[in-house]
C-alpha cells in the first residue's frame, strides 16, 4: 500500500491504494470518476485514455503509483464552468458518437492530437486514432468532429494572434 498524491482535474488528491492498482481503477473506483471507461483492459481499445502531465496515455496500462506527483486530466476535467470543451462540442455537433462508450477516450485522444499536430487532415486523424476502437464503427463522424475541432482551434489561435 502507498499513499498516492496527485492532481486530478486541477484538484489535489491523496489516497491510499495498493501498488498494483491500475490508474483506471483508481480513477473510477476510488475517485468515482467513471467517465474514463474500460473497454478491453489489454491496451488495445483506448476507451481508458487520460492525460498524464499533458500526454495521452492508456490508464489501464499504468499503475496509479506511477502517476504520483503528476497532473492527470480525465474527460470530467475538460468542460469549464458548465461549458463543453470545444472538442466535446464538435463531437456533439458532428454526431461523433453512437452508443458513446468509446467517446471519452476518443475525445481525450483528439484533444492531445490537436495540441500536438497543426493542420490535421483526415488521413492523419485516422492514423492518430490507431489506438482507439469504436465498436459502433462510427469513425466517419468521429474523424469529422476532430477535423472540425482542429479547424476551430486553429481559427482561435489565429484570432488571438491577430
Amino acid at each position, binding site marked *: 500500500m502507498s499513499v498516492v498524491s496527485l492532481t486530478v482535474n486541477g484538484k489535489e488528491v491523496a489516497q491510499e491504494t*495498493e*501498488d498494483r492498482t491500475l490508474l483506471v481503477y483508481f480513477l473510477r473506483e476510488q475517485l468515482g470518476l467513471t467517465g474514463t471507461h474500460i473497454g478491453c483492459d489489454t491496451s488495445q481499445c483506448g476507451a481508458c485514455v487520460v492525460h498524464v502531465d499533458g500526454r495521452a496515455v492508456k490508464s489501464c496500462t499504468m499503475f496509479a503509483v506511477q502517476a*504520483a506527483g503528476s497532473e492527470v486530466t480525465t474527460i470530467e476535467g475538460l468542460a469549464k464552468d458548465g461549458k463543453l470543451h470545444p472538442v466535446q462540442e464538435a463531437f456533439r455537433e458532428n454526431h461523433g458518437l453512437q452508443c458513446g462508450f468509446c467517446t471519452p477516450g476518443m475525445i481525450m485522444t483528439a484533444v492531445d492530437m490537436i495540441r500536438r499536430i497543426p493542420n490535421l487532415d483526415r488521413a492523419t486523424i485516422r492514423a492518430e486514432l490507431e489506438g482507439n476502437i469504436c465498436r459502433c464503427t462510427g469513425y466517419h463522424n468521429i474523424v469529422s468532429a476532430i477535423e472540425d475541432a482542429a479547424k476551430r482551434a486553429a481559427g482561435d489561435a489565429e484570432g488571438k494572434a491577430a
Partner: protein
Amino acid sequence: MIPYPFTYHRATSLAQAQALLGGSADAKLLAGGQTLIAAMKMRLAQPSDLIDISAIKELSFIRAEKDAIVVGAGTKHFEVATSDAVTRAIPALAELAGSIGDPAVRHKGTLGGSLANNDPAADYPAAVLALGASVKTTKQTIAADDFFTGMFATALDDGEIVTGVSFPVPERAGYAKFPNPASRYAMVGVFVAKTKDGVRVAVTGAGPCVFRVPEMEAALAKSFTSEAIAGLAVDPSDLNSDIHGSSEYRAHLVTVMAGRAVAAASHG
C-alpha cells in the same frame, strides 16, 4: 485484470536503480510498462518488486555526435519520432519510432524496454541490427550482432540495465513495415542501411528473432536498388507460421518489404 501484488519503488538515479534491483532476486525494472504491465495482468510475470526507472533523467536524452546519434534507454518512442536531431541524421529511425503501436503507446514505451524485451515482432531491433548500433549497459557495450540472442532473449545478464544505444549515421537507410492490421506489430519489417563499410539488411517479425540477410546485403553492395534483390528470397522453413500468415507468405513479404526499404532509402 489485476496483477499479483508487488512493491513499487521509484528510482531517481541509475545507481539507486541498480541498488534496488540487486536488493531482491525477483525485482524487475519498469520503464514504459507497455509490455511488462500487460504480462503482469495476464499473470505471466510475477515480480516481487518493480523498480520504476522512467523518472531517471540520465537515461532520457537524444544526442547528436559526429558520426552517431546516441539515444538514452529511457527515451520514449514519441521523442525519437519527433526529434529534429534524429530526423536530420537518420530519418528512417524517426519514422520507425513513429510507426510503433499508437500515440498513447509511444508516449510511454521506451527504447530500452523494447530492446530488453526483444519481441520477435518489435521494430527497434531491426534498426539496431541494420545500423550496426552498439547497446550500452551498466556493465559493458554490446555490439548489435551479439545483443539479440533468440526469441525474447538478449545478451543482458540479470541486473544489467540498458543505458543507451549509439546508432552510427548511415549514408542511407530505409525501413518498411507490413504491420499486423490488429496489433500494429510487424508481420514483417525490413531495415536497410548503407554505410561506408557496406550494406546491412535486418528483418524483424518474420522469424523467432531479428536476423540479417547476407545474400541481399551482397547484392545491394554491388547495386543499391530494389531490382538488385527482387529475385532473392529467404528460406521459409526458418520463419514463423501462425494465424496471421504462413511462413511462405512471410518469406514473400521479406523480399517485398526489403525492396520498399531500399526504395525509401534511395529517396532519403
